[in-house]
């Protein structure tokens, strides 16, 4: 921190009078960020470190990057090992060094053979003259003095060493070269006195270190001095991959991730509904849970859904092979094999032991850049915590998530919970604070049964369900089921099933009762209607009969009066006889009624 403030004041002073310090990018992943732009142009940078710390790789990689990407020529002066060996070790990286050595990089064997006899004082005037000629010929921008300490120790005189270092510095300034000087330092700053002196003389000091942490070799880089410039203070992890050395810089302090409002499926409809419509594209989701809570299954559904949408996907698994995972997932209806075959899905599995968390990061970044997935899964991220120290793993986990977000990949990360408390677990890697969505899976054990429960602990920037759902796995994939609450307790599994069947039975009963009642009512209605009909018919018949009787009566009355008058006419009786008629008429009327009935 002190270093930073001091350097800052220097840079501010410089700013007021001169242009900002011109820098040359090293092209080394992360280092240009840490050094705020690279190494000082036409100045000298000292790279110190113990054996195997990566000094030569750092220097050579800088030359290679300059030559490959910016057409900058470079000279590499090898004091420590033969140039053939330098090329051989450089060929272990994918730099295409052999081709570059012919045209753009000049390697000078400056190893003093052990058979050389030293008889008196010597200097580097001759070598610098050679290099100046070579620089002119090549038009070099960079020069590396690799293992300068090896040559200097031959001088066996601190004053002579100092003199030669000054000579080199002046020569570099004259020749407008950007120089990298590497030198061994055993521990800390207390190296040989000349290197301490060298640190004062040069403009920038980069310190590389290799040490063991929890049985895993870790590499660290630190800038201890940068004249006239700001730099990121602190120690940064270093790792070696195919592309060479890489500095694990946290990147810029300011986070600039795009915030997409596009939603993509988290795997299946019900979960999307719980998330208020799915996951935001480019977001990160953490799935925590104890062993066997179907974290991998959820992740698998997410990946399968992505592939079905026609998006590229990456499935990273730790400590479990991709084939067993694909097989296990296919047992719950998630078929990944066709997507692997079509090239949409890339499955990568790695062991976590004996590899530093850094190396995993490098590998994953390489995979992402190679496959360019839009969705990916890391299952489980907690495995990284086993690689090296927890502190290192935590930093890696953070950087991993940020890196994935930088690449605009929607990621689902699973993490194992050791205890029942999800909060306790998530603190191990502290991923939960960076993750946008956090889904927790747990077991609910009741009545001799274990059931899976799913809750959304958080989901940034969106509505999400606060309810617990039961996660049910079947041959057609995972699904979510409503849980029953009874007496303040959540019912799941068989208990839920019992309650469900109980409910459905009583519903059936109620339905049946209702039907019965309705049918009864319908019957009585129909009965009433029928009876009304019958009575109407009866009424009509009675009315008909009555009318008929009336007609008979009239006819009879007509005929009887007619007959009376005819009898009267025949008997010539007097009109009084007609008084006896009712007695005669009564039985006739009675008979008529009986017949009509």
């Amino acid at each position, binding site marked *: 921190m002190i270093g930073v403030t001091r350097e800052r004041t220097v840079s501010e002073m410089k700013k007021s009078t001169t242009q900002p310090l011109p820098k040359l990018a090293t092209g080394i992943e992360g280092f240009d960020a840490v050094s705020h732009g690279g190494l000082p142009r036409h100045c000298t940078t000292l790279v110190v470190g113990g054996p195997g710390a990566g000094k030569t790789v750092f220097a050579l990689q800088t030359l290679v990057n300059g030559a490959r990407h910016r057409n900058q020529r470079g000279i590499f002066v090898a004091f420590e090992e033969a140039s053939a060996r330098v090329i051989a070790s450089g060929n272990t990286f994918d730099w295409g060094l052999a081709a570059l050595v012919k045209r753009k990089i000049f390697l*000078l*064997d*400056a190893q*003093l*053979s052990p*058979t*050389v*006899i*030293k*008889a*008196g*004082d*010597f*200097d*580097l*005037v*001759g*070598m610098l*003259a*050679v290099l*100046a*000629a*070579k620089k002119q010929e090549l038009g070099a921008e960079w020069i590396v003095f690799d293992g300068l300490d090896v*040559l200097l120790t*031959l001088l066996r005189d601190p004053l002579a060493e100092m003199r030669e270092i000054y000579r080199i510095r002046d020569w570099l300034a004259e020749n407008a070269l950007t120089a990298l000087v590497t030198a061994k330092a055993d521990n800390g700053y207390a190296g040989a006195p000349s290197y301490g002196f060298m640190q004062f003389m040069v403009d920038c000091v980069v310190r590389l270190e290799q040490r063991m942490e929890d049985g895993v070799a870790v590499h660290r880089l630190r800038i201890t001095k940068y004249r006239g410039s700001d730099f990121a203070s602190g120690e940064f992890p270093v790792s070696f991959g195919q592309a060479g050395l890489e500095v694990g810089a946290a990147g810029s302090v300011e986070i600039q991730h795009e915030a997409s409002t596009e939603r993509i499926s988290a795997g299946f409809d019900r979960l999307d509904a719980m998330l208020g419509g799915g996951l935001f594209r480019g977001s990160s989701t953490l799935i925590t849970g104890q062993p066997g809570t179907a974290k991998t299954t959820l992740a698998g559904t997410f990946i399968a859904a992505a592939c079905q949408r026609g998006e590229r996907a990456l499935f990273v698994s730790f400590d479990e092979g991709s084939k067993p995972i694909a097989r296990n997932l296919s047992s719950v209806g998630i078929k990944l094999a066709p997507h692997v075959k079509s090239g949409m899905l890339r499955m990568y599995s790695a062991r976590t032991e004996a590899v530093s968390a850094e190396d995993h990061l490098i590998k994953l970044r390489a995979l992402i850049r190679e496959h360019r997935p839009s969705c990916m899964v890391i299952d489980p991220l907690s495995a990284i915590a086993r690689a090296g120290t927890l502190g290192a793993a935590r930093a890696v986990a953070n950087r991993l998530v940020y890196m994935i977000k930088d690449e605009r990949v929607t990621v689902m990360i699973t993490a194992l919970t050791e205890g029942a408390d999800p909060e306790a677990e998530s603190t191990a890697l502290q991923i939960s604070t960076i993750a946008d969505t956090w889904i927790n899976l747990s077991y609910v054990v009741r009545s001799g049964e274990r059931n899976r429960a799913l809750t959304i602990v958080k989901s940034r920037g969106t509505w999400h369900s606060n309810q617990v759902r039961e996660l049910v796995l079947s041959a057609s994939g995972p699904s979510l089921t409503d849980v029953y609450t009874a007496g303040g307790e959540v019912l799941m599994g068989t208990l839920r099933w019992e309650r469900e069947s109980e409910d459905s039975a009583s519903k059936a009963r109620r339905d049946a009762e209702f039907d019965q009642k309705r049918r009864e009512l319908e019957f009585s209605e129909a009965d009433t209607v029928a009876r009304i009909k019958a009575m109407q018919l009866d009424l009509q018949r009675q009315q008909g009969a009555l009318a008929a009787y009336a007609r008979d009566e009239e006819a009879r009355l007509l005929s009887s009066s007619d007959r009376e008058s005819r009898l009267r006419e025949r008997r010539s009786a007097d009109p009084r006889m007609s008084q006896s008629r009712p007695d005669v008429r009564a039985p006739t009327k009675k008979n008529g009624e009986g017949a009509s009935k």
Partner: protein
Amino acid sequence: MSRPKNKARASAAESTTIVSMRLYIAGSAPNSRQAIANLEAICREHLKGLYKLEIVDILEQPLRALTDGVLVTPSLNKVSPGPIAKIVGNLSDEGKVLLALGIKKPTA
């Protein structure tokens, strides 16, 4: 036992063979000037004219130094007779120079 034999051969070489040498210097750098002076003194005293010396100024022929594999200055190469030897430094350590050139054999 073997010492007298060696001595005899050494003195024979001393008397008849011409030592061929090449001295690489860097202009008028102090070490280079000293090297020339030291070597001339050695030759006067020990070789008595039986030597051949070529002085190469690296500042003038830098790429020649490169092909000859010489980097630090001053630097003295014994070209013949074999075995060849490479000596770096201003040749102030006369004993070492004589040994390296094969003029003197190691004694005890």
